[in-house]
C-alpha cells in the first residue's frame, strides 16, 4: 500500500497577497535566475510546472502579474504561464510572475538545473522515450502540402462534383470539394500539420453516391497519416459508385 493522503497538509494556493508584495523583477533582483513555463499547481510549498518539475517556494514568495508588476486580478490556476525567480543561495523560489501567454524572457523550465528540482526518487531512464522513427522528416516547414488526386470510374456522370467525406467532419458527404483536372481526374490541395491522421471516402455529394469496392461491396474508409515532410502526393482510384451498376 502506498502512502495515503495527508489530509491536513493541503495548503491553499497562495493567492495574490493582501499586502502588495515588492516587485522583485523591477529591482536589481531581476538578475536572479528566471525560469518560465506553464503552471500546473501551487501547493504544499511547491510550484509545479507542466514539465513535471517541482520547485520549492520560499515562505515569503511574492506573486505578481508579469505585465503590470502588481498583484494579478485573475485567479491563479493551472494553465497560466509563470516565471519563477530563484534565490541562488537557497534554491527557493522567491517570486512568481504570471501571465496568460508564454514568457520568452526567461530560461525555459525544461532547462532548470536538476539541483533546483525537488524529487524524492532518483531519476530513472525511460525506455519508451526513444525518438520515434518516421519515414520523412522536414526542417523546412511545420505543415505539409498534401495533394490528393483521384481517378473516377468511366461511368461517372460528367456534371458530377466529387467530394471527400472525413471522420473529422462527422462523415459529412460534402466536407471537402475537389477540383476537376480533366475528364476523369479531380484533386484537392491542402496544408496539413504533421501528425494529422484521418479516415476518408470519396463521394459525389451524398452518402447514396459514396465510393464502393470494385465488386460493389461497401469499402472500408481510407486512412491518411501525415508523418512529416514538406509535400505529400496521394493518388487514389475510385472503382465504383454506390448508386451506379
Amino acid at each position, binding site marked *: 500500500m502506498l502512502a495515503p493522503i495527508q489530509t491536513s*497538509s*493541503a495548503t491553499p494556493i497562495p493567492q495574490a497577497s493582501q499586502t502588495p508584495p515588492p516587485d522583485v523583477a523591477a529591482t536589481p533582483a531581476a538578475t536572479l535566475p528566471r525560469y518560465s513555463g506553464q503552471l500546473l499547481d501551487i501547493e504544499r510549498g511547491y510550484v509545479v510546472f507542466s514539465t513535471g518539475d517541482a520547485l520549492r517556494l520560499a515562505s515569503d514568495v511574492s506573486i505578481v502579474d508579469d505585465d503590470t508588476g502588481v498583484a494579478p486580478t485573475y485567479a491563479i*490556476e*493551472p494553465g497560466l504561464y509563470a516565471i519563477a525567480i530563484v534565490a541562488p543561495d537557497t534554491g527557493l523560489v522567491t517570486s512568481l510572475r504570471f501571465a496568460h501567454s508564454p514568457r520568452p524572457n526567461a530560461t525555459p523550465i525544461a532547462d532548470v538545473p536538476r539541483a533546483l528540482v525537488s524529487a524524492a526518487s532518483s531519476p530513472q531512464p525511460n*525506455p519508451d522515450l526513444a525518438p520515434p522513427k518516421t519515414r520523412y522528416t522536414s526542417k523546412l516547414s511545420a505543415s505539409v502540402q498534401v495533394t490528393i488526386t483521384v481517378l473516377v470510374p468511366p461511368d461517372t456522370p460528367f456534371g458530377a462534383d466529387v467530394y471527400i467525406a472525413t471522420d473529422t467532419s*462527422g462523415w459529412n458527404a460534402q466536407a471537402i470539394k475537389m*477540383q476537376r483536372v480533366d475528364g*476523369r481526374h479531380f484533386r484537392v490541395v491542402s496544408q496539413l500539420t504533421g501528425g494529422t491522421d484521418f479516415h476518408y471516402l470519396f463521394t459525389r455529394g451524398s452518402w447514396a453516391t459514396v465510393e464502393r469496392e470494385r465488386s460493389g461491396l461497401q469499402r472500408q474508409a481510407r486512412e491518411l497519416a501525415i508523418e512529416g515532410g514538406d509535400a505529400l502526393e496521394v493518388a487514389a482510384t475510385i472503382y465504383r459508385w454506390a448508386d451506379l451498376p
Partner: protein
Amino acid sequence: MKRAIALAAALAAMSPISARSDQAPQAIGHALLRVRAAQVRYFSDQAVVQARGGVDVQLPDGAEVRGDLATVDLRLRRVAVAGHVTLHTPAGDFAGAGFADFFAFRRAYFLPLVPSADRWTFLNGDWSAPEKGREMPGDAFALPDFHETQPYIEGTTAAIDFTTFARFAPASIRVFDAVPTPALPVYVYNFSANQNFGVNSLSGASFDAPYAFARSADSLDALHLRYDQTLPVKEFWSFEHHSLFGDAGYAVFSLNPASQAAKQWNLLGYDQVSSRSGFAVNAQLFTVQSGLSEPTSSTGFADAQFTQALEQSAVRLDATQSYDTFLATGAPDHPFVLGLQWTGYDQPLFRSGFTYRLQSGFAHIHDAFGIAGQTLPDAWSHYLGAYLATPAYQGPAGIGLDATAQMQRTWLSFPNTVSTTTLTASASRQVTPHIYVVATQLTQTASATTASLTFASPNTATGLSPAPPSPNGLPVYGIATVVPDAVSRNYILSGSWQPSPAFQFSAAALKTDYSPIQVPGVAGPPRYQMSGDMRFRITRTLFADVSRGYFFNWGGRLWTPQFGIQVSAQ
C-alpha cells in the same frame, strides 16, 4: 563457445528488465471516461474537452481523479488533471500536482507532492506499483491554451467514449461558432471513425442542423432541424436513427420530414456476410398524413440486394417490390422485379493503355395490372453493356486529352430493344497553379424499337435504371427515360479556381443540340446554359456553397428560380 553464447542468451532472457508498456497504441474499448465540473467545455478545433472548477474525473477502470482543471484530448486519447490533484485507486489514495493518463499506451503519469514531490509512472493499469523517478515525456502534462478561444459546447458533465462520441449534459451549443443556444438537456458529439455513422437516409434540404441526443458505442439518435428552399414550408424537423453491427453492418431509419404531412419513412441496411459478399436493403414508404393519423396516401417500395465478389467480377441478386398503394382504396398494384447482374472489373486492353469494363443483367418483371401500360403481366429483360476509357494523353501546349465510351443494349420480351450510347471527349489544361479549364464534347443517344413498350426500374439488373436515379440519390419508380432515337450533343466549357481550400469557384457554359425536337415547352433541354458555383468558408468549421444558372431566355426563362445554397461542415 556455442554453449557459452547460449547460456548468455538464456541469462539475458531471464534477467529483469525495466518494466515498459507497449509502444504501439492499443485498442481502448468503449468504456466511458466521465467528467464532472463547474464548467465543461468542448473546443472542436483542437478536439479537446476542458473542465474547470471542482473537477471530478472517473477513469474507465473505476479510478477517480479530482483537481482544479482537466483536459481530455480526443485525438491523443489523453486526460490530464492539474491543481490540487487527488487520485483515488484500489491501491490507495494519493495527493499531488498533476495526473496524465494516455489510454492508448496504458501509461499514467502522476506528480505526487505527499510526502514530497516526486514522479510516478503507472504502467498497464497497475496502480499498486508505480515506477518512481522514471523519466516522463516533456509534454505529458501540457495544457492547451484556450484563453482567447470560444468553445463549441458548454455543459457541466461529459461522458466520453474515446473512439466514438462525447455526451454533454446539459449542453449549450454555439451555432455558426457565434450564437450559443439555451441549455439543452443533452448533446452528443459524434466523432467515430466508422463511416457507417455517416450513412444519411435524409434527402433534400439546403441546411441541416443535427441535434444528437442519444448515443451508445453502436447507436445514434438525432433530430434534424432542416431548411429546404424548394418547399412551401421551408423549415421542418426530421428524425434519424443509426444502429451499427460490427465494423461493416448498419441499419439506418429515418422519418423525413417529421413535421409535415408529406412524409418519407426510410430504411437503409447493410451487412457484410463475408469478406467477399454483402447484403443490402433499401426501403421507402411515402405517406401523406397529419401527424401519425391515418394517411390519405401511402406508397412505397423495398429493394434487397445480395452481392458476391468473384475473381475478376461480381454478381448481384436484386429483388425489388413496389407498392402503388397500401390503402384499401386504389388498385392494389404491386410490381415485382427479380434480377441477376454481372459486372466485370476494369481491365487493361492489351498494352494500349485503354481500359474496358463489361456488364450484363437478366431480370423478370411481374405486374398483375400490366407492364408499361400493356396487359402483359410478365416480361423478361436482359442487357449487355461495355465501357471503354482512354488514359490521359499529354498533347501540345500542356493540353491533356482523354475520352470514354459507353454502349448498352437491352432486349425485352415484349419484344422490344433499347440501345444507349454515351461518348465523352475532353481536353484540359492547367492555366495557373490554381486554375483548370476543361472543354468537353458529350454525345448521348437512346433508341427503342417500340417507344411505348419501355419502362424504368430502380433494379439495375433490368438495364433500364435511370441514372442518376433521382435528385436525392434514391431510386424512384416509373420515370420514363427513353425517347426513341434521341440524340443529345453537348459542348461544355468549364473552369475552376481553387486558390485555397477555403475558397473555390467554378463556372460552366453549355450548348446542347437535341434531336428530334428541341422547342421550349415541348421537348428538349435549353439550348444554352451557364452556371456558376462558389464555395467559401463562413466560420472555422462551416462552408457555404452558392450556385445559380442562366438559360439565355429559353422559353422565357433567364435565371434558375433561386440560388442554390448549401451549408455544410468540414
